């Protein structure tokens, strides 16, 4: 015996479809914002890398100065 199809009445169908379309637009906007944040994160990572390199160079300079100050070639 074939099953009798049962249907559910959906009121305000237009409102539902409008909300679905709005949600779709918001998701697209959120994806665009996420892409922009990822670009900023990449720039931030590049700045962190540059900062790390500068700190390493400063550390080397400090070591060099410290060596020259602590072990002078000539003492007065």
């Amino acid at each position, binding site marked *: 015996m074939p099953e009798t*199809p049962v*249907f559910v009445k959906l009121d305000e169908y237009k409102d539902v479809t409008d909300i679905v379309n709005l949600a779709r637009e918001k998701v697209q906007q959120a994806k665009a914002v996420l892409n922009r944040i990822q670009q900023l994160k990449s720039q931030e990572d590049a700045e962190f890398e540059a900062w790390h390199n500068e700190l390493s160079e400063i550390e080397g300079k400090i070591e060099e100065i410290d060596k020259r100050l602590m072990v002078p070639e000539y003492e007065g």
Partner: protein
Amino acid sequence: MGIFDVFGKKKQESLTLPPPPMPEMDEHQMELPEPPHDFEPAPEPVEEHVIEERHEELPAPEPMAPRAPRSHDGPIFVSVQDYQAILNGVTAMKSKLSATDESFKKLHDIKAAQDKQLDAWRSTLEDVQRKLTYVDEVLFGR
């Protein structure tokens, strides 16, 4: 006279219809002409490979087109299966949105901690700059 008598009368009338008139034709028109004695019907060549080529040239079946959106503003009726799928989709979307909200809070906390560390770094940098200025004055008198 009952209702079914009408149909009985129609049946009787249909039985008394005269035979349809035959088209007027001459006797020589009704007979097919004799084929010539040297006539031999040539069999049509069967090209088997044509069938295969045609089979290969058949376009791939296109995917089923999405259902056209309904345009009216009033209520609609959807099947129970579709309704259940819609409900499951909405529930999944709400769950995903909650997870996204949690991710946003975590990112916000990370950003706040990062800002705090950047402020501390700025203070340390300014302190080192002051000390280097002092060393510069002590060593070089400027």
